[in-house]
């Protein structure tokens, strides 16, 4: 009952509403020691305090009233508002490719959730069409909500469910797949799908937005258009991430999801390919290839589905002075795989050696990746590296730490034989380890350097 009429209110605020018989969505006049107020009582976000009542005043603004100042309240009307995203039929045009959009909980189109004050996604083709009508010019759209979780809550069961759903759609005959995904763990899901859905005949594109679609400057509509273009019309049949290339509304980049990383907490062009160039760029006019070698689109419907995942893998980010009990406790807790994120070329301190030996003896699979993100693990240069290798830690080349974590989980989901795990880990499925790092695979411009600032002023948008 409280939920229905007093949505989100608790404690003192709830008492006051009850005392004066005023409901959420009721129009109320409120007398307070700070003067009189008039407006519609709104639901309260459950994380906000219990000392205020929120009303929407006539001018459209929301304000909060301190319940301790309220001396009287009177409900003068009631007008429940149901937020609804418009829905128009998504037109089907002959000759356009069919793209399947999987929803996982990202915010492509969204509405307000009064409970948390955050936004919740809209998803049906009709809703999407009414928000981004341009989509109808790109493809015929089908959607399916696989699950609705925030990006940070994605995990093994979701990867597996998604992989199976994708394989099914490929067999069914769609021309491309787009997955709406929160950006925080997009690279994890991308890596998982690369390993689980191997050699797909069509593009599989992960897309999201850095600004939710309830904002006029949202990157969601253009990202979606780019993803649909790449999935429906592009020739690259790989699992890729499609997000803004720069902060401007100009072009998107297609990144291999084994080499991509989110590099800024809020920037639009947050995703960068690490240690290589992106596969291609994309605008609404089409895909422009950057890398010459890629897996082209095929007519067949063959796909290798390997939906395995062990939840007994963990990561250890090395820090100076780390104590061996960190490793010991992980081993004792039953973890079967550890991905180290080491310093420099792949180093850990001597103090850890006994713990590593112990883990190795217990059959824990240990792999080394880098905090530097760019570059290769090279454990022969210094004695430390050789020591660590001798104790069973296997270098992962230039595999990104998160990718190594996902891959080890996937490998251990299939086998615990050390040699087989090692083979799986070190045999790249889609460039998670590359043989070469091109010169332009490492580009981190340093602002303030005159020629860089000149480039920023003249060229980059």
């Amino acid at each position, binding site marked *: 009952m409280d939920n229905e009429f007093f949505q989100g209110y608790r404690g003192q605020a709830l008492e006051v509403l009850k005392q004066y018989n005023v409901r959420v969505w009721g129009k109320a006049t409120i007398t307070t020691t700070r003067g009189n107020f008039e407006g519609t009582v709104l639901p309260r976000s459950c994380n906000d305090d219990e000392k205020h009542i929120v009303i929407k005043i006539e001018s459209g603004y929301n304000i909060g009233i301190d319940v301790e100042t309220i001396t009287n309240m009177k409900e003068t009307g009631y007008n429940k508002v149901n937020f609804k995203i*418009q829905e128009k039929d998504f037109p089907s045009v002959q000759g356009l490719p069919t793209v399947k959009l999987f929803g996982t909980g990202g915010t492509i189109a969204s509405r307000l959730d009064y409970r948390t004050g955050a936004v919740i996604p809209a998803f049906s083709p009709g809703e999407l069409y009414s928000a981004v009508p341009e989509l109808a010019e790109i493809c015929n759209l089908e959607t399916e909500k696989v699950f609705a979780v925030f990006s940070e809550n994605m995990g093994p069961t979701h990867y597996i469910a998604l992989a199976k759903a994708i394989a099914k759609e490929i067999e069914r005959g769609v021309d491309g797949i787009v997955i709406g995904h929160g950006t925080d763990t997009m690279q994890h899901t991308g890596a998982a799908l690369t390993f689980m859905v191997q050699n797909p005949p069509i593009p599989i594109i992960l897309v999201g937005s850095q600004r939710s679609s309830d904002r006029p400057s949202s990157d969601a509509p253009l990202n979606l258009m780019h993803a649909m273009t790449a999935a429906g019309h592009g020739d690259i049949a790989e699992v890729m991430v499609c997000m803004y290339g720069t902060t401007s509304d100009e072009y998107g980049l297609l990144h291999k999801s084994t080499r991509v990383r989110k590099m800024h907490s809020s920037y639009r062009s947050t995703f960068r390919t690490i240690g290589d160039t992106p596969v291609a760029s994309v605008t609404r006019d089409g895909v422009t290839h950057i890398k010459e070698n890629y897996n082209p689109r095929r007519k067949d419907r063959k796909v290798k589905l390997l939906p395995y995942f062990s939840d007994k893998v963990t990561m250890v980010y090395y820090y100076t002075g780390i104590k061996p009990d960190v490793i010991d406790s992980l081993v004792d807790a039953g973890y079967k795989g550890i991905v180290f994120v080491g310093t420099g070329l792949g180093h850990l301190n001597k103090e850890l050696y006994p713990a590593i030996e112990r883990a190795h003896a217990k059959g824990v699979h240990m792999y080394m990746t880098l905090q530097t993100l760019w570059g290769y693990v090279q454990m022969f240069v210094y004695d430390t590296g050789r020591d660590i290798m001798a104790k069973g830690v296997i270098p992962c080349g230039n595999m990104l730490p998160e990718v190594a974590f996902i891959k080890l989980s996937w490998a251990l989901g299939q086998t615990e034989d050390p040699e087989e795990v090692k083979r799986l880990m070190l045999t790249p499925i889609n460039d998670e380890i590359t043989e070469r790092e091109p010169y332009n695979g490492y580009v981190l411009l340093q602002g303030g350097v005159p020629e860089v600032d000149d480039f920023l002023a003249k060229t980059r948008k």
Partner: protein
Amino acid sequence: MKKNFDPRKNYEATKVKVGYVNRKDATQTLYDKMGFMSGLEVHQQLKTKKKLFCNCPAGIYNDNSHFDAEVIRHMRPTLSELGEYDGTALMEFKTKKTIVYKLKNETTCTYEIDDTPPFPIDREALDIAIEIAFLSKLNTVGEVHITRKQYLDGSIPAGSQRTAIIGVDGEIPISNKKIRLVQLCLEEDTCREISNIGHTRVFKTDRFGMPLIETVTHPDMVNPDEVKEACDYIRFLNRSTNKVRIGIGSGRQDVNVSCKGGNRVEIKGVSKTKLLPELTHNECFRQWALIHIKDILTKRINVKSWKISTKKLNFFDYNFSYSPAIEANNRKDKFYAVNLPEFKGILSHFTQPGKCFINELSDRLKVIACIEKPNMITSEDIENTEDRKIFTKIASMFNAGENDAQIIFWAPKEDIDTAISTISERCKLAFFEVPKETRKYNLDGTTEFKRVLPGANRMYPDTDSPPIPLASEHLKNIQANLPSDVSERTAQMIKWNIPKDTFTYLHVNNLFPLINKIANELAYEPKFIACFLGHQLKHIEGQFNARKLDYNKIYQIFEFIKKRKLDKEIAFKILPVLFEHPQMDFDSILESINFRKHNNNGIISNISFLKNKYNEIGKTKTDEARNNWVMGQLNNIAVGNISMNELKNIVKGV
């Protein structure tokens, strides 16, 4: 008569019919008859160190000569909290503008370009806004909720402005009544426009994010003078805190006007209050004229059967001589003719001084279809544009009726459809109402279309910012330190016999506290100080390009005079030197104006000698001429030592 239709004469005749008079000839009876109604939204920048939602410095402005980077955005309408699209939002999406932001590192971080969520609100700004809310007798809220207000014109890179209500339902007094206040908001200031040509609009982000308050009045003003008076009062009230920015652009107002049967029209961003009376006067008459137009049209034809026809023209079939048309053809613009049934006499119908209904169409073509002006010629142009013979040909091509009117417009191919629907829509609106719109002001007191007036549907709670509770204890502290009311200050100034011509200057610069302080602590007459400031200081500022002096220095002048037991009039001589050399100490200033300390007797002892001298050399043999000459001779040694009035009496008596 029909054959020789003269648009100019029609314009003049309709101006008379509408009853347009100049503002100085307009009476309250006339305004009452038209139902003049106006309300204000007064914007004022706050003097804070930082911007409202990020840590960039506030108050630094960049010129257009160099930028460090640029960002491109397109704005797309989104659903409001209540699930609807806003009218303006949709219109602006239709215009398909590319927005370019020019960035300077000095004034811009990733927040301004909407690549970083907001930081917690600037507390300094919040407290100033609360202080002004109290002064405006508003009821302060218990909890501040940040709202995102959609603006798709590009003036805000995020497409929505963060704004929050601080107080509601207040009032301010003007000379004859009280003006009710709706609310006061604290919001981030917008970007400054660099250019807006065709489909590209360029902004810079230096000003964006600076704290700004908006005081909104009810439409309680019933004539243009009241609008100015209310606006001045709010402006003075803001200034009385000493915590707001001054200078060009730091205070701007939007003024809403309607007449009986009209609609709310907002004139945006008026930076000088003295323009308000003329603008509101003319807007009231523009609406009054549009109602006349509506009456004419509805008598002539039923809107249901009214429809425009259009035809594409081949430029070379017509002997165009109007140079903008020729230039348009050189740009490869397409030419279209439009026939407007029964619109004869409407196109050239008066709307504003020097403007007619054609401007309503042409302005919208510029804004909505992005076609630069001049973008059309018509069969009723008031100014000579094109040979009328062209329109005879066009009319016969359409098989047009005697009462029809015609337009020829030009535009790039891709803008033609929007242009045609814009003309059609605006003409159809003429049958029904005065369109609700936002208008841009011109210095001559006229206005032009800026955009459709936005509604309440563009509000969205800012999910990035938690609500901010305002504790009663904190509010009490602010309330305990409020400056005195502007109305009380005015009353006190009248009591002090201060000349009224100084009031605006004294309020604008918040000099009342200084007068009060000098009068109380140094015992100088308030009237003397007020004139010293309102006449002498103002005059000198004018000579120094409106440069401002640190007002503490004024206090120090009088403190110095008092200490040295000089006569107060020496201040008039000290001030210009101080203005030129603000760092010079007062003794050096006295030196530089050749001041010498003399006792009164020493000065007086010169009088009889001087009088005799004048009798010898003076041409006009009157007492007055002689005394004036003597005073002039004594000026240098007397000022600062003896009151000149006192000396004058002594001269008379000797």
